[in-house]
């Protein structure tokens, strides 16, 4: 068990991944969208849809459902937009809406839910074979296996751990922002992340010789 006296000071250097989380939508664009300017809203859609769709896809593991959830999230956004007062960053505010939509959708269809997303696996395989021509075949094979195992392990994670990991490592949000998005204390974010990653690590290590300890390219 982690010690309970954890402190999570706000740090500057903790961005995980580039784009989505660091991207911010200007207030003037938001204002225009509130005024009913559909072009401005479309701009917001174009800027944020990839992140939201990927979040939905990661939570739901299904393309169609992810697309539906993304649309629903944007409808919710459209309705909630006039109430956006800029007290939080727009992206984290919107991600909170979207995460709620996705989790609701997940719970609604929980019974008939499959664990893996076969299409994504195919897509992943395709991507991996087209990549990395300069490494040796052995390395390529190992990388591929690692990522496939990781993907499988992620699919099997409990949804709350998966969501936190996606927000942190794929969308690049800070602990503080994830806490706002998921409406849990910052400590809980830390706990979810560590537990989720511990499970991933365990699965990666147990499923193949030598675990994931392969020298980096």
């Amino acid at each position: 068990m982690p010690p309970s006296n954890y402190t999570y000071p706000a740090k500057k250097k903790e961005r995980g991944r580039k784009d989505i989380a660091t991207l911010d939508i200007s207030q003037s664009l938001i204002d225009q969208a509130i005024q009913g300017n559909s072009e401005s809203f479309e701009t917001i859609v174009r800027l944020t849809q990839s992140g939201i769709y990927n979040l939905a896809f990661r939570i739901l593991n299904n393309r169609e459902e992810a697309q539906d959830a993304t649309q629903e999230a944007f409808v919710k956004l459209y309705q909630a937009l006039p109430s956006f007062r800029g007290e939080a960053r727009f992206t984290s505010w919107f991600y909170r809406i979207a995460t709620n939509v996705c989790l609701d959708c997940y719970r609604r269809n929980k019974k008939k839910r499959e664990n893996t997303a076969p299409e994504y696996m195919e897509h992943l395989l395709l991507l991996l074979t087209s990549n990395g021509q300069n490494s040796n075949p052995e390395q390529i094979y190992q990388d591929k296996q690692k990522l496939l195992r990781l993907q499988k392990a992620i699919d099997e994670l409990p949804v709350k751990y998966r969501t936190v990991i996606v927000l942190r490592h794929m969308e690049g949000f800070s602990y503080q922002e994830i806490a706002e998005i998921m409406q849990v204390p910052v400590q809980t974010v830390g706990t979810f992340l560590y537990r989720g990653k511990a499970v991933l690590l365990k699965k990666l290590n147990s499923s193949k010789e030598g675990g994931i300890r392969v020298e980096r390219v």
Partner: protein
Amino acid sequence: MKECKWTHHDVTAYLDHQLSDLKEELLKQHLKTCNHCQQLREEYDELNHLLVQLPREPVPEDLTKNIMSTIQPLANLQKASIEETNQELSWWGFLLRGIPLLVSFSMIGVITWIIYLGQKYTWQETPLLVWQSITQMWNGFWSILHLAGNKFSQFFYTTWDTAFTLPERSTGPLLSKFNLLLTKATAYQKVIELTILAVVAWIIIALITAFISSRICFDHGEERI
């Protein structure tokens, strides 16, 4: 490598720079000597790298289009409600809505009054009685105004009074005609004054009624956007 006090939680938090400065420094020092924690750190670091490497799912081609078409009906609704709000707030809008109400209310009042008088006296006498009451009320109104002795209204009254009885010394074809008109008007001064004041009073009442009625009857109770 016995159980040391640092946990998986510490190591992941360390890699995400979520430890306090003191703890971060302590763990950094510890990592130099503890193989177990070093290995953990490497494994979690590797995992973080792998997670970032996972390809993003490409957005379906028609996603934007689909989203926008889902939004469209909502946008139309919103536009309509904005227009409605504007209409509700427009001065003319509520005047036009208020006047019919006022007219019908005054008609009902007048008719009731006439019927009342017709029943009390005779139908032949009624028009005269109505006229008498109007003049009575009118005089009463003026006497109250005079009684109030408002200097402001006095000022207005005298100014307009002198305006109607302009100096006769001015001559010239146009001016004389104008003067003639004024003299004629002076003859009907009481009537004109009465009419003007009645119209003004009516407009004021119309405005008040229109305002109140538009609040009561036409307020949709919707928040302005």
